[in-house]
């Protein structure tokens, strides 16, 4: 059956990717809370049976040490997958991530190889409120020393995880927890997907829409609505925001003359600003008719469904922003 793909969820796609890499490389292991029971999201289901307690390490609620021990173990030559359960808890481990993991290679003049993958399921997910819903991926683009994966499909979840595990860089892997259930075709042998190459969701000539992570389905809906209304969008899912596919976005905006960046995170200070500023400078403002962003308003994520809906970036809002860019 090798070579045949299976239709699986994004969650399962990630699980298969880690399984493949752990079977291939004994140095790869997982640490995090509850991982021996499969992890909070079942993303390590049955791993404990296969790999045992040495490689599937259920940890205390000690985020600083989960992160920092992962680094220490990498420094002696193992390749840890640091499971952070929910992104917001990474705030308990920021010294280890920001001051240590991102900097050791540089500070030590290249002696260290912090080959860790930090998995951090992020984003809004069923009314989890302000401390369990954050999307701060933009922060890490501003942090030298790390790469950042932000997949949105099962295929990309699998392929980018394989790349992440094989990478010698610290990879911050933002699992899109609202998309655990989306399905895709994952091959029996999962090939790595290179970082920094956008995925084309649709080709069009009127307007470029750039997105990533959990907002991708909303953008997908919006682009269909726009098409019905006669607006042909060129739509790119960046898949990784560091590095990101500047060339592809620039080429698209050169063609369409209009840019809209859409992300689930707060608009102010989000990565959308980086995309706009980079592209405007690269192409020259005079060669662009519109450069817009859409993201959440600058408020914490509220609990109540109508409030959460109020601040969510919806297909309707994306359509409206796209139309505003067409004038």
């Amino acid at each position: 059956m090798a070579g045949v793909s299976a239709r699986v969820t994004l969650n399962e796609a990630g699980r298969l990717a880690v399984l493949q890499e752990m079977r291939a490389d004994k140095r790869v292991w997982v640490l995090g809370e509850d991982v021996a029971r499969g992890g909070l999201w079942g993303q390590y289901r049955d791993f404990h049976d296969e790999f045992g307690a040495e490689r599937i390490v259920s940890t205390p609620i000690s985020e600083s040490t989960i992160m920092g021990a992962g680094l220490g173990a990498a420094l002696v030559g193992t390749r840890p997958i640091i499971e952070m359960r929910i992104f917001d808890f990474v705030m308990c481990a920021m010294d280890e991530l920001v001051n240590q993991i991102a900097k050791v290679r540089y500070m030590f003049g290249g002696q260290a190889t912090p080959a860790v993958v930090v998995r951090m399921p992020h984003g809004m997910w069923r009314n989890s409120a302000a401390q369990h819903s954050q999307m701060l991926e933009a922060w890490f683009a501003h942090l030298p020393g790390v790469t950042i994966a932000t997949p949105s499909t099962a295929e990309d979840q699998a392929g980018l995880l394989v790349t992440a595990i094989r990478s010698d860089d610290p990879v911050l892997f933002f699992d899109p927890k609202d998309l655990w259930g989306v399905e895709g075709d994952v091959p029996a042998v999962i090939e790595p997907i290179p970082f920094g190459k956008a995925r084309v969701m649709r080709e069009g000539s009127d307007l470029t829409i750039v997105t990533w992570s959990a907002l991708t389905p909303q953008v997908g809906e919006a682009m269909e609505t726009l098409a019905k209304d006669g607006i042909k969008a060129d739509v790119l899912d960046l898949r990784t925001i560091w590095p990101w596919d500047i060339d592809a976005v620039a080429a698209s905006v050169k063609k369409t003359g209009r840019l809209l960046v859409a992300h689930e995170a707060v608009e102010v200070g989000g990565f959308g600003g980086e995309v706009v500023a980079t592209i405007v400078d690269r192409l020259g403002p005079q060669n662009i008719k519109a450069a817009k962003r859409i993201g959440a308003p600058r408020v914490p994520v509220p609990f109540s469904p109508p409030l959460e809906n109020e601040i969510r970036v919806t297909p309707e809002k994306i359509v409206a922003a796209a139309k505003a860019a067409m004038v």
Partner: protein
Amino acid sequence: MTTDNATPGGAGHNAARLKELFRTMVRIRAFEETAMAAHQNGEMPGPLHVSIGQEGVAAGVCANLRDDDRLTSNHRGHGHALAKGAQPDAMFGELFGRESGYCKGKGGSMHIADFSVGMLGANGVVGGGIPIAVGAAQGLKMLGSNAVAVCMFGDGAANRGPFLEGLNWAALYKLPVLFVCEDNGVAAFTATASVTAGPGVSARAESLGVPATGVDGNDVAAVDAAVGRIVAGIRAGSGPHLLHAKTFRWTGHTSTDAAAWRDPAEVEAGKARCPIARLRATLFEAGVSGAECDAMVTEAAAEMQASRTTANAAAWPAGAVAYDDVQDTGAMKWQA
């Protein structure tokens, strides 16, 4: 239940006090059962962590607190809030995300707060309440108050760094704070013992200069008595204390978790230590009839059911509410 006078429970329990403790516990139990039913019925969004089986700790601790005593709580905080004096209408309103909720629907189950009765908030971060509680105690001391701060947290939280920092801090500045480790033996889906080294939370506290007392958290009279003594001491300036209360969580981590991995025999044994059943037996010996207890149970169930109904009928917050309460300067404005 919040007493006017913070009567130390130690000096001989009378039936009236025990009845109040019973009432607090059955109200918590009823709240949690009603919340679970509502959650399973789709009335409530988001995750739900209930404290069934742990009622003795919340009731026994809070019976010794005044309204101006402050309390920080964790993700499993309904019992703490109720016992501290929060109202079920506004609690259910919050659980259901309604405007009538304590936080106008912005917080939900994991962020219930009622500052008017000194409940400084549940917390979605394990251990998150520890530094906040010591700071509250420091502030109270600075303001010349003799109020105390109480910090409720689980056994899982004793493995996070803030435990060390907060307890050292409290001992150092001799702060009026009571740390309550509500030890139900589990942290999410893991037995806490399997991820915790050393002789235990009391030893950890003592190594940081915080005296510790162990108590059977399912014996509410014992909790009440111990806390009565301890809080009186703290109020008099003794400095911080840790209470290690052993208890048992009847349910899974969240209301959707069946906790199938737990040993059924252990669960049976745990449930047999029900703090409510236990107090009922004591009350019977003290001359309080089963019928009287049943009446309290029925009343509590009705109260919570009424709050559930009220909350279900309450208005949803308007969209503009999402933009309120962020900050004064530099806030985004709502556009209809």
